[in-house]
Structure formats: structure tokens, C-alpha cells
């Protein structure tokens, strides 16, 4: 079991690094979708109370929403917009990857005291990786210019929080899981609409040009 968990964690790690290095928006969207699948499998393998119908259905719903619906939605939002590439984010791609390494080290150090209370049969790197995913998401939100990349960063952040929850085997009640999923869905949905409107209004989705409002 631990090897499976290890490999899933490596996949998650690599997807984060790829997100930091990749410049094509479509590639980023696909990676986030893949990440959703990975974290669904993680949740299934580390479910504390065994695979009950509720757990399986909620996890499958999560995978479907984050892995299929939201990527489709985001792709729709940029349809017609000329945003295949991210031109020069605020922090270059190489630097992003190196910063990613730093973030990973930070998350390993920070997670050290937390790991003691994690369940035994998940990978020891699960909690650091979930923190790393959260930090990666934050980093993407902060350093990318395109509104769509920022939305993706939010999704990555959310994925990280989700993995953190499942790596600690926190069992949320059904209602709460569903509520969280619904919120994430609606959040990205609304973001997609706003991106669409920004695109229509400005003919681009570079958020650094959204700088009229300031003091």
C-alpha cells in the first residue's frame, strides 16, 4: 500500500513542478485535471473508515467535477481569447521551478511536527506534498499574469487543502464534503464568467493591466 501511496505522491509532486514550469495554458489545465484524478485516488486509498458508498460517491463526484467539468469550463472561458501561452509571468519559469524547490523544502520542514499524527499507512511525504501543493497554488496565484492561470492556481490550492484533509484522514460529514465541492465548483464557475467578461471588455486577460484601482 505504501508504494502505491508513494507513487501517487510523486505524481502529485511532479504535476506541481510541471505547473510551475509549463507555459501553455491548455497544458496547465490538463495538468490540473490530472491532479484532480490523482488526488481522488489518494482519497480513495487513504479513506479512514474504509470504502463506504458515501466516500466513494463523494470522491468520484470530486474527481468528475475537478477533473472534467471545471477544465471544460475554463477551456470554454478562454475560447476565442488568444491565450495559448503565458507571456512572461512576473517570475520566470526557471525561477518558478527553483522557487518550487525552495517551497518543497519549506513544506518538508514545516510538516515535520505534523507528520507524527498522520495515520501510519499513508506515505510519509503525503503531508509535506499537500503543503507543497498549497504553496504552489499560492505562488501561481501571485506570480502569473493571466486571470485564467490565477484561477488555476486557486484550484491547485484547493487541491492541496483537499489532499491535506485526506492525508490526515479527516472524515468530514457527507453534507460538508458536498458543500465544499459545490463551493469550489461555483467559485470556478463564477471565475470563469468573470474571465469571460474581462476578456470581452479588455480583449485580454492580463491581470497586471487591471491596475486602475489603487491608492
Amino acid at each position: 500500500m505504501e508504494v502505491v501511496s508513494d507513487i501517487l505522491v510523486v505524481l502529485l509532486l511532479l504535476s506541481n513542478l510541471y505547473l510551475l514550469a509549463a507555459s501553455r495554458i491548455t497544458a496547465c489545465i490538463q495538468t490540473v485535471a490530472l491532479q484532480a484524478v490523482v488526488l481522488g485516488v489518494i482519497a480513495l486509498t487513504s479513506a479512514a473508515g474504509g470504502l463506504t458508498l458515501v466516500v466513494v460517491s463523494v470522491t468520484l463526484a470530486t474527481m468528475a467535477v475537478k477533473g472534467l467539468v471545471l477544465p471544460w469550463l475554463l477551456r470554454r472561458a478562454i475560447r476565442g481569447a488568444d491565450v495559448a501561452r503565458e507571456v512572461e509571468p512576473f517570475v520566470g519559469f526557471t525561477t518558478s521551478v527553483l522557487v518550487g524547490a525552495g517551497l518543497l523544502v519549506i513544506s518538508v520542514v514545516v510538516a515535520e511536527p505534523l507528520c507524527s499524527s498522520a495515520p501510519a499507512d499513508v506515505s510519509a511525504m503525503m503531508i509535506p506534498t499537500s503543503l507543497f501543493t498549497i504553496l504552489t497554488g499560492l505562488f501561481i496565484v501571485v506570480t502569473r499574469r493571466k486571470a485564467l492561470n490565477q484561477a488555476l492556481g486557486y484550484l491547485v490550492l484547493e487541491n492541496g487543502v483537499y489532499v491535506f484533509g485526506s492525508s490526515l484522514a479527516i472524515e468530514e460529514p457527507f453534507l460538508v464534503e458536498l458543500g465544499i465541492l459545490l463551493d469550489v465548483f461555483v467559485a470556478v464557475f463564477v471565475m470563469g464568467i468573470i474571465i469571460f467578461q474581462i476578456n470581452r471588455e479588455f480583449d485580454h486577460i492580463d491581470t497586471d493591466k487591471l491596475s486602475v484601482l489603487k491608492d
Partner: protein
Amino acid sequence: MMLWSVVLIPAIAGIAAMLPPMRAVRRSLLVATAVAHCGLVGWVCFATPVVSRDSWFAIDAPARIILAITSVLFLAAALYCVGYLRREEGRTTCDAEEGFLFHNEPEGIFVGCLLLFLASMSFVCICQHFGLLWVAVEATTLASAPLISFHRHHRSLEATWKYLLICSVGIAMALLGIFFLASAGRGHAPGLTLSGLVSSAAAMDPVWLKAAFILLLVGYGTKMGLAPMHTWLPDAHSEAPSVVSALLSGALLNCAFLGLLRGHTVLAAAGLGSFSGELLVLLGVFSMVLAAVFMIRQTDYKRMLAYSSIEHMGILAVGAGLGGVAATGAMLHAMNHSAVKGMLFLAAGNLLAVYRSKNTCDVQGVLEKLPVTGCLWFAGFLAITGSPPFGLFVSELTILKGALDGSHWVVAALYLAALGTAFVAMARIFLPMAYRLPDGSPHDGASSPGAREPVWSVLPPLALALAALVLGVYVPAPLWDAMRQAASALGVL
């Protein structure tokens, strides 16, 4: 069931309002729902059912106050909104500042989101389960984001994007904090209900609890507009329609504050109240000072009001963090601030409608031109800066008393300094707006006196101003009791 109706009625009404054939009845539906909600909340608040230990939904003392504030403010806003929507009826409008044309959002979506916003805020108030509370707070963000971009132009879209992204990311931190809380409570507490966590808090690992509170503070603090996570707030408040600004400032921020209080309660029950309290005071004082500084050279009166909201959220955080009588003061302050800030934003909406500018230099001689709004504007200035006849004076004084009682001299000094700075800064902006006449040009069309002030747009702010005045002169004993109960429910008295 009673409790549920508080959420369900506006939610159903909201969805109904989005339906296409509702054009004619939409506005009356809005007002009717607001009135019904108000009545229900009154009933819920006075006939409080007993809170069972592990129930997910219940209404306790702090939530009661926040819910009441939200409901009353929404009623005022709904009434104002009818007039506002009538004014905005044309689908193509000229931008007030830059003079370009833009479309408004469909009215159905606006009204629907307004009602859903009310539903989500009510949901925040009745949640006793931390996970659901998070869901509810995130729902308020999502319901209010379309409200901010009612005017579909580049500034409002920018504000909406910032609001949505910053708040969503911040709130995600709070979810992490909730997971920390769950991890701390593993083996001790059965679930994530407030009462369950409070009763078993003493046995939990303090390190996890502290980390959880910091994350909750970042998350809900972002939503509440505490510095340094406040950056979305001035943009959103200045670009949203005034009625939405009033709701954001007067109701939404309080709801986030409630979320923060829940975390504080758990920490206090675990004996870590001083830790969380100090953090709250720290962020609170920082917000106050920062907001006061930013108000000094402000030229946009809606932004100035937004910074004032940051300042008052800082005051709330300080009050809650200090505990004791200051916490009671914070509850009272939340009520006063909501009334006054709601009134000011509604008045600002009137000014914006007539002067078509948010720049303070363009808005002059309000008392002459719009007597009622001008009086409100002037009274609002006195009220928001905490001048004696109004309620904010009482609550700010109570919090100051709490600080002095606990001999937190530095906090008290900074508190007074920030309030003083804010007074001077706001006086510099408000007084010329109210008094100074336009540089005598008789043929200037804008200076012709007696612009019409429709009753829809003056009555709601007038009522709110009266409420603030009454609270300043006389706080009824039952109300005071409710405040004290709310403060004691924090567990830090």
C-alpha cells in the same frame, strides 16, 4: 424548521427572482422577502430554542446579534434598492467618471444574487459546524461577486476579480485551519460542532490549535478586511453599487467576524484565549492605524468609507481580542457600525446619482443642493467618527474602557491615535463636501438647488441614522443583556 426558513425563504426567493418571467414582481418580491426575513429573524431571536449540544444548526447569542443586524440592514437596502433599480432601468448607462457607455447586469441576476447573498449570510449565522460555516462563508463570496460587477465596465470587473480571487484564496486558508482543528480534536471531540469542540478543547494539542487559529485568522480575516489582507475591500466597496457596498460593509464583514469569533471561542475554551486575543488585538490595531493613514489623502468618498470600514473592523477585532467589557462593546459596535455605515453608503449612492462623481472635489454644497441627504451625510460623519450623540461613541468608549481596565496602555494609546487621525482625515473630506459652495457660477446647471430626492432613497438611510442615534442615547436593557450574553459566549469574560 424555524431556523431553516431564515435561510430557505431568501434562497427560494432568490432563485425565483432569476426566472425570466418575473420582471414585474421582482422588486416587490425583494421587498416582501426582506420584510418576511426581518419578521422571521425577530421571531427566531426572541423565541430562542434551546441549543442542543451537538446540533449543527442553532442560533446562539453572538449569531443572534449578527443575524438581526444583517436582516435589518437588508430590509433598508431592499427598500433603497427599489428606487435604485428604477433609476438604473435603462440598460445602457453612461459611466459616472469616465463617460463611456456600458450595460448593466440583467436585473434578475442582480436581485437574485442579492437574495442569495442574504440567504448565505443567514446561513453563516445559524451554522454551528465549522465545516458548514466555511461553506457558508465561501457562499457569501460567491453570491456577492456578481453584485459587485453590476455595472459591467472595466473598473468593476477589476474589483470583482480581485474580490473573488483574494477572498477565495484567503478562505481556502481557513479550510486548512478547519482541518487543523479537526486534527487537533481527533479522538477528543466527536465532530466539528462548536459545542463539541468547546467542551473537549482542554484536552486538545495546543500547537495544533494555535496553528488552526492562525489559519482561521488569515482566512476569515481576509474576508473581514483586516489589514494586511484588506486589499480587496476598498476596490470592491468603491466599485460596487452603493446599496451593495452598504451590505458588504454592514453585513458581510460582520459575518466573517462571526467566523473569527467561533475560532476564538474554541481557543478560549482550550485556555489559549490570551494567544488568540493578542493576535486579534494586534491585527485590529494594525488595521485601524493603516486605515487611518490611508484615509488622510483620500479623494474618493466611497473609498474613504471603505477604509473607514477597515478601521471599524479593526475596532471589532480589538474589542473581541481584549475580552471582558470590551467584547460587549464590540458587539454593540458591530450593530452601530452597520447602521451608520449602511446609512453612509446609501447616502453616498444618492450623491453619486446626482453629482455623477466619486471625487470629493466635484461634490460640494451638498447641504444646499440635497438638504436631506446633506443632513444625513453630515450626521453620518459625526456618527462614524464616534461623536457623542450617536451609538458609536458609546461602543468605542466601552472598548476603550475595556482596554484601560485591562491596563493595555499601548493598545489604548494607538486606538485613540488612530481614531483621532481618522476624525481629522474624515473631517477634511466631509465638511467641504457638506458646506463649501461651488465656486460661484450661477449659470452652472449642477448648482441649481432643489434636486429631487425620492422618498425611496432617503427614507432607508434616515431610518438607519435614527437607529444609530437611539442606540447612542439609550441602549435598552434587553439589548444590553443580549450583548453581554454574546460576549460571554465567547468564553473570555
